[in-house]
């Protein structure tokens, strides 16, 4: 069960010809796939395209009715290899993942696919995780398109454009026998908008037809001599075919303007930002009208030389708005203009930053520089927008705020079962000193941030243990610790990490954090999920898999909140005489999913008059001395501070916020670290049983009597 349900939204996928679709970009993509007669879809979840996978999951029935097969691929490589179905058969297939990380994983299969070429249309929808909100290294998918000769679409970020990009993407792919990549930036994936729907199309040629009438064609297989022919085919046949199709179908867009001796060439994805910048400079309006002609590349690879030449004809200068580096497009343009001996001045990375997201403010700056250089008169009498004004000095009070604003990096949620694992590691650190910790990708990577500050490197999804492979020497008894999530484990960690450690006789320790979902990507199910899943096989044991590849020392913790237990087990793994790889599987359900499951259930039981116990932690502010060591060992969002009620004490005291889900970590840490007696757990019992009542009836009078005695001792001290 994933974090967000689209059960309601997926009904929009049934919209028919002429009806208006309103919703999130990702949902529109799904609808467009169905309108394009796609036969199969695969992919691997990850922001910003996680919702695409979730939508498809919730749309299982609709997909079935259209004969569309949908897979949660084991990895991006699996997803890419799935496209093999379109090599020999006229089947349209689409895959999706987070890029560039997912594209890295997929590129072996993608390169093979692109070499042999395709018969059915192949669409690779990549969520370009670049700029603000990104969680990965800052690179461009563009490079993959170039190296493997796949075409790259970068449509204008509005629903009609995105939808058309999908329809045309399939057609382009078929017209040029080449897989096509569709790049969607983060904001485009989440943008809410509208477009006019078409009917969904059931593919004429189905998977059944393909399976029952197998075809093979050696010339499509990447083996010499075919592989050499493929390369020639790419440049001689597929490339020209693509350029021809792009022109005929006018996939790139030209917007004319009255300042004809200048021009702006931009990636489709940059369109809205550029238009807004033009408007603010008084050179355009909210409807996209621009005084400077625009050449919008909805296809950013390959460039169409003839279009470029046509656009540049009679232009003094051209500004290229190309986000990210290296400046592939600008370099390409230089080559085209030089060959054609066109003298149009080319600007781009000299007026806009080489790297980083192109925010509206940056584009404004670049545009202004361009206009001031070639047509300053256009700006006459027009006041500069605030973002460009340097004259207005910020008031002192505003400058002061800088120091008051702290970063808020993401961190473990309230009640997260991963937090106690790192609390335990902190305690081990106190006893055995620091260890080299190799991290992985997933929520657990938040351990590298305060308050834990645990972890030295992360080399990619599932590569946690591989990242410690070199630390394999008998010259020291000290061991390394590696972290891996259940998601990364099934993605490739079982072989790249565990298998590798067994084969190479690694003596290190691996902690597999098994929270029963790929939590970081939105809580999707995986092989080892404990939930029943209507369309997938779950409940496969990680421990069995680990033993299966030959690990002898395997321990499973079924309650990670037991900090002391976790600490002792880690110590054992780090100090045991037994040589060879050691694997600890730390199991507890992702609290986000758990709350979603349990909360409504508790409510229902309470309403039915059943006995329900709600656990809630608290801190006694009169025994708390305000040293906050409990927070330093937890960092739980619900464990915060508040002004000290004691007039004598200055430092704030710890406090537990209402968002507490009673996971118990506070108490466990207080115990394991021998912290402080201020923590208490209150069990709030709804619909108490008769036994509860009897106990209370016996206890309360005695307690009240003794409490009255205490009161009398204290009477007269405070008024």
């Amino acid at each position, binding site marked *: 069960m994933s974090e967000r349900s689209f059960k309601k939204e997926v009904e929009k996928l049934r919209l028919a010809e002429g009806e208006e679709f309103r919703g999130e970009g990702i949902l529109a993509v799904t609808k467009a796939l169905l309108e394009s007669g796609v036969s199969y879809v695969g992919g691997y979840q990850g922001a910003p395209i996680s919702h695409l996978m979730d939508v498809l999951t919730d749309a299982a029935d609709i997909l079935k009715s259209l004969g569309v097969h949908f897979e949660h691929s084991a990895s991006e490589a699996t997803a890419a290899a799935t496209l093999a179905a379109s090599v020999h058969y006229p089947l349209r297939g689409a895959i999706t993942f987070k890029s560039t990380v997912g594209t890295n994983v997929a590129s072996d299969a993608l390169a093979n696919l692109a070499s042999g070429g395709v018969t059915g249309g192949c669409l690779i929808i990549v969520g370009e995780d670049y700029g603000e909100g990104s969680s990965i290294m800052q690179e461009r998918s563009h490079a993959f398109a170039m190296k493997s000769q796949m075409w790259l679409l970068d449509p204008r970020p509005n629903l009609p454009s995105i939808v058309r990009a999908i329809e045309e993407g399939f057609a382009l792919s078929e017209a040029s026998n080449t897989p096509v990549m569709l790049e969607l930036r983060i904001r485009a994936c989440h943008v809410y*908008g509208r477009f006019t729907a078409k009917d969904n199309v059931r593919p004429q040629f189905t998977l059944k037809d393909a399976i029952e009438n197998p075809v093979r064609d050696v010339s499509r297989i990447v083996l010499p001599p075919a592989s050499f022919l493929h390369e020639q085919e790419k440049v001689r046949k597929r490339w020209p075919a693509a350029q021809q199709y792009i022109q005929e179908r006018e996939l790139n867009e030209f917007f004319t303007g009255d300042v004809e001796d200048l021009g702006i060439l931009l990636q489709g994805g940059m369109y809205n930002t550029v238009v807004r910048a033009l408007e603010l400079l008084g050179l355009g309006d*909210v409807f996209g009208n621009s005084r400077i002609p625009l050449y919008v590349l909805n296809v950013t690879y390959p460039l169409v030389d003839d279009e470029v030449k046509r656009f540049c004809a009679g232009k003094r200068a051209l500004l290229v708005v190309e986000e990210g580096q290296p400046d592939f497009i600008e370099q390409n343009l230089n080559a085209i203009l030089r060959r054609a001996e066109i003298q149009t001045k080319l600007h781009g990375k000299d007026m806009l930053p080489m790297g980083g997201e192109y925010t509206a403010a940056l584009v404004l700056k670049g545009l202004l520089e361009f206009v001031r250089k070639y047509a300053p008169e256009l700006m006459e009498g027009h006041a500069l927008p605030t973002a460009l004004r340097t004259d207005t000095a910020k008031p002192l009070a505003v400058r002061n705020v800088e120091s008051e604003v702290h970063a808020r990096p993401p961190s473990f949620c309230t009640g997260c079962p991963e937090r106690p694992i790192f609390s335990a590691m902190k305690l081990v650190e106190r006893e055995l000193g620091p260890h080299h910790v190799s991290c992985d990708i997933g929520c657990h990577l938040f351990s590298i941030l305060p308050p834990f500050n645990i972890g030295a490197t992360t080399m990619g999804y599932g590569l946690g243990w591989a990242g410690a492979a070199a630390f394999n020497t008998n010259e020291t008894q000290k061991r390394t610790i590696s972290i891996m999530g259940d998601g990364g484990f099934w993605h490739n960690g079982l072989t790249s990490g565990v298998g590798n450690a067994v084969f190479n006789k690694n003596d290190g320790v691996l902690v597999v954090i098994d929270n029963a979902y790929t939590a970081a990507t939105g809580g999707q199910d995986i092989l080892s999920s404990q939930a029943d899943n209507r369309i997938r096989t779950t409940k496969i044991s990680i421990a069995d898999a680990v033993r299966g590849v030959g690990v002898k020392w395997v321990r499973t913790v079924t309650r990670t909140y037991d900090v002391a237990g976790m600490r002792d087990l880690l110590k054992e793994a780090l100090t045991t005489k037994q040589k060879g790889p050691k694997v600890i599987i730390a199991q507890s359900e992702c609290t986000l999913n758990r709350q979603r499951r349990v909360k409504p259930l508790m409510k229902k039981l309470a309403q039915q008059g059943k006995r329900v116990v709600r656990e809630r932690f608290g801190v006694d502010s009169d025994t708390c001395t305000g040293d906050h060591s409990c927070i330093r060992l937890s960092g739980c969002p619900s464990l915060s501070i508040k002004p000290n009620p004691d007039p004598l004490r200055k430092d704030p005291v710890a406090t537990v916020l209402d968002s507490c889900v009673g996971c118990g970590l506070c108490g466990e840490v207080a115990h394991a670290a021998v912290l402080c007696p201020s923590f208490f757990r209150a069990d709030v019992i709804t619909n108490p049983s008769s036994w509860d009542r009897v106990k209370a009836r016996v206890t309360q009078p005695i307690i009240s009597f003794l409490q009255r005695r205490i009161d009398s001792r204290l009477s007269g001290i405070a008024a």
Partner: protein
Amino acid sequence: MASNLTAGRASVTTPTGKVISIAILAMGGEGGGVLADWLVDVAENAGYYAQTTSVPGVAQRTGATIYYVEMFPESEAQRAGKEPVLGLMPVPGEVDVVVASELMEAGRAIQRGLVSPDRTLLIASEHRVYSMSERTAVADERVDTEKLLEAANAAAKRFVRGDFARIAEEKGSVISASLFGALAATGALPFERRQFEEAVRRGGVGVESSLAAFAAGYASVSEPRAGQNKTNTDQTSVAIGPRLRELATRIRRDFPTVSHIVLLAAVQRAADYQDEAYAAKYLDLLERVRDADAQFGDGNFALITETGRYLALWMTYEDAVRVADLKIRRTRFERVRQEVKAGPNQLIEINEFLHPSLDEITDILPARFSRFLLNTKPLRRLIERFTGKGRVIKTSSLTGFLLLYGLAGMRRWRRGSLRFEGEYKAIHRWLQMIPSLAAENYALALEVAECPRLIKGYGETHANGMRNFNVIMGAVSRVRGRQDAAAIIRKLREVALADESGKKLDRALQEISP
């Protein structure tokens, strides 16, 4: 690749109805997305194009996120015969409304230039969700709320504030609802209250509680507030009971006015901790410092006040007896009940997480017996077997309560206990320095007076604090006589507070030029 493939010769128009831009700054799980969706729904049903987007990603895990909404009247679009091109990210200086779910997030919006004095309405909840660095500090590193509020006032065209978190909580809803109500009340958007509420209804989740929070948020803006939102809890007077009247008069008679609040709270604490005699003893101990302050001080009487503060805290050190005493009180039981929001027909059970160590036991036993205990191995081991691991004690059960009650009863023997002996010596060492230091360097005396701030916590934390304290006391004798002595001690104290381990402190000590 939308409808207009090749637009004809474009004529740049300047539409009268401009784009309405709204930025929402929230933290993961605060419903910033819901708020954005409501806004889109309101706008679309009022004949506007509406677009919203965000960059949630991992920020959904408690990080800070910006949701951005733009609206544009359909009538304008029809007149122009074209659809508007709406932005995907806020442009500094071009934002009409900024909604911040928390005060530091408002600061973030200002920092990013989203709030401009000629245009922006800033609606912010003035409550604080403390950042990690604020929460993990050993002492107090909370940012200055006033600075944030000043910045908000200076940066915005109009600044609307209120504790929208509390308002929402009171209605059993989430902050997005109360903020939505506040936004509606500002009249900044061209929609009626009714239209906002209909959007909430159409949303269909938790409608009733959301509407209640919406109404409360609306009212908090539309109706003048009766002086709510207290930010500081500084007490202005201490309610002294009859048994302490004498001591109170003594304080008011013999001690400077500025110190009264602290000293009154102090005697109350001492009497509550032990008895009136103990409270009287406390005042006796302070007299020499008082005189020194009067003689050498600058008239602000900071020395007597701070010494008074830390002497009181030190004399009422937290031993097992004190903890037990505080845990079993009626007032505490009631406080817990209301803190966990237990209803009248709900039972609650209170479980304490205690971890008695051998030391904590010998702390409270008669000094002689404790020493004997500590020096006889077999006995030691026997006890350590019971103090090996933490215990959960149910104070609400008879056995648990009686155990702590008995423990609290050992108060009467405290004066004879091993710990008392030790603390008393240490207190004297510290207290005696102060008057003599004041004579030669008042500022230094004041710094020394504040050093016990380092001693807090329990077990290891307490031990660390005490070690750092002693180290600094040692340094005092080294630096006294120097001009910059006070500055050095202050520096050392701050360094010690910045890192428990004491490593930074040791480094700072070496750096002191001879």
